[in-house]
């Protein structure tokens, strides 16, 4: 296969380093894969014989399960390693863990790690494909890709959309990947949250900053509401969950004031009554469960493309005709 400008290369580390055409190619490839999860027998032979390790140094349910479904529905052989009970807790270094796995002849590693840059670090040191499932506060590219796919499903196209990311942007890898991806696809991006939780210099990326949620709602077509980590109060970023909800909570009263449809995304898991009220999360404009469904399709697309699949042959690949 000759590399095209939409091919991904060896790894998926983040959206900052991808081009718009690479991102669109992943989203386009995800579309035909959605249908597999609707079948009675949810399995195609695309990755038959491939060995994938899900290497999770941080606890995760949603992302790990989503990757595992994607891998299994594509017929890959998968092994899960989580930090508790692995040699990581016995002091083995990240690079040694990776080399040991490599020595067992694997094809891909899906890695989640608490340190920014850890996925890139691994990718630079092993020949397997590496997929970043979240590194520290840096990037969570598959989450942003599924957010982009969900926005595209809702609005038809992303270019020109006004998307505001609400909450703890400072500590959020979801926010960073979304900002990079949305800007590349031509959306207007804003962030809104307590000033203590917005990164310095973020405006230099071409992002609008709102301190008040009312302003953000008046501006946006869609809100991507981030989870508020409960430990942020202890480290002094804000006084209380109650105050957070009162000032920055996404409530139906605030959304109604906009007098138009505002699509609501949330990467989960939600703190109901803190960053988002239940009637919003469960309301007509919430696409939170569509995000989860799209997550499996997007991850299938990424796995397929990194394994050398071509975007325009995804449909054939599902029947085992190619890969």
């Amino acid at each position, binding site marked *: 296969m000759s590399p095209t400008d939409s091919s991904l290369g060896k790894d998926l580390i983040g959206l900052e380093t991808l081009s718009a055409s690479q991102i669109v190619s992943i989203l386009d490839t995800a579309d035909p894969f959605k249908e597999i999860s609707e079948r009675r027998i949810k399995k195609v032979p695309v990755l038959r014989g491939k060995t994938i390790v899900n290497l999770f140094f941080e606890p995760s349910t949603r992302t790990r399960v989503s990757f595992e479904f994607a891998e299994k529905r594509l017929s890959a052989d998968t092994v899960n390693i989580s930090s508790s009970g692995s040699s990581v807790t016995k002091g083995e270094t*990240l*690079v040694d863990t990776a080399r040991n796995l490599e020595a067992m002849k694997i094809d891909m590693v899906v890695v989640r790690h608490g340190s920014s840059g850890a996925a890139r670090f691994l990718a630079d040191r092993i020949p397997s494909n590496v997929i970043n499932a979240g590194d520290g506060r840096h*990037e969570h590219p598959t989450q942003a890709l599924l957010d982009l796919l969900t926005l595209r499903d809702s609005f038809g196209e992303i270019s020109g959309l006004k998307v505001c990311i609400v909450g703890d942007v400072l500590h959020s890898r979801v926010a960073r990947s979304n900002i990079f991806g949305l800007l590349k696809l031509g959306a207007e991006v804003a962030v809104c949250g307590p000033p203590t939780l917005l990164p310095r*210099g973020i405006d230099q990326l071409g992002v609008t900053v709102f301190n008040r949620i009312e302003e953000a709602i008046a501006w946006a077509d869609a809100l991507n509401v981030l989870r508020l980590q409960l430990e942020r109060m202890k480290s002094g970023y804000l006084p209380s969950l109650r105050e957070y909800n009162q000032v920055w909570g996404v409530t139906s009263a605030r959304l109604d004031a906009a007098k138009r449809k505002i699509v609501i995304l949330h990467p989960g898991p939600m703190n109901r009554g803190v960053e988002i009220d239940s009637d919003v999360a469960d309301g007509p404009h919430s696409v939170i469960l569509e995000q989860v469904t799209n997550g499996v399709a997007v991850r299938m697309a990424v796995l397929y493309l990194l394994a050398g699949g071509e975007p325009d042959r995804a449909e054939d690949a599902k029947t085992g005709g190619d890969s």
Partner: protein
Amino acid sequence: MTRPVVIRGGRVVDPANRRDDIADVLLVDGRIAGVEPRVAAPEEALEIDATDAVVTPGLIDVHVHLREPGQEHKETIATGARAAAAGGFTAICSMPNTDPVIDDPAGIGFVLRQASKARGARVYPLGAISVGQEGEQLAAIGEMVAAGAVGITDDGHPVMDSGLMRMALEYAQAFDVPVADHPEDLGITRGGVMNEGLVSSRLGLRGTPNSAEDVHIVRDLLLAEHTGGRLHLQHVSTAYGVDAIRQAKKRGVWVTAEATPHHLLLTDEAVEGFNTNAKMNPPLRSSLDRKAVLQGLQDGTLDVLATDHAPHHYDEKERAFDDAPFGIVGLETSLGLVYGHLVEPGLIDLSTLVDRMSWAPAKAFGLPGGTLEVGGVADVTIFDPGAEWSVDPKRFLSKSRNTPFGGWKLKGRPLYTIVGGEIVFSADEAAG
């Protein structure tokens, strides 16, 4: 008795004596015996042809981590002293943040004994300000000075308790040594791993803002002014910090301060790609800060060029960025970096640079040398200003290789490092 040495025909740059001309330098019995256009040497003298070379008072680095005792896998006093000599330094000041911390006269004695066996640069130890560098109780400052300490510092740990810093600045006056502080307010830093700015926001790395350093610099300057104490500010990296020191000096505050080669030549963009060899504390800052540090070095606000040589083992830097330790090595690249990238392009003149690397550090810590005054110690550095070379960390004499300057093209390379009239480094031997 060492053989006399005569250095013939070099460009002698000796800022303390306002000399910059072609001359001979004669060293006899460990002392400078003559600096003249044509010096008469004893017959048995070893003759060094210094034509086209620069001859300076021995270079001094007042900020070096030697890691011994406790972390000898990173560096030892012997390897550090020899790496210093290879970098053209005749003397270095060792930091006390070892394991155990050098906070008593026995520790100072240990460093000096190890150094005397090294056959490299002289080592002048600093002792801790506080017991165990824990920031609570003053260490045995008087006894350490009596044992040979030339200053005190809790470097690596800023003195967070302003009352303790005041006490140190007062108490140390009895012994006429500077109190060196690593200016950083840990309450503002909060675990930051790089400069706070656009790069940290993009990479998702915890940022340390300039204000963490600025607050602490201003506090230290106020305390030095209040106590009349002798303050030395380590590795200044911010524009505001440089200006605050400049203003304080105008008011007559007794303060000296350092600039490092890396803060003069790099910005936080060097962290791009999560490069752990660009992780140090204070962090690489913005280009505005970099220019301010350079201006501070030019106008003498920052008196001293110091490397903050901080060796770490390869494995320790071969980690995710958050998990890698702070610090880079500097002894063997310092001269070539600043000569090649500051003097050659005309950003600083040679005489000023030699002042910042010899006379100013000698004055700041009351050390012998820093001048080619007849009768002074025969510590001399000879370097080839025309030698171009590229940094190959594998060739370092230091035990560690953690430098962001690997592959950089430098100009200016030490030919001879002479300590007390004895050649402790020669480029010919190193090459042969």
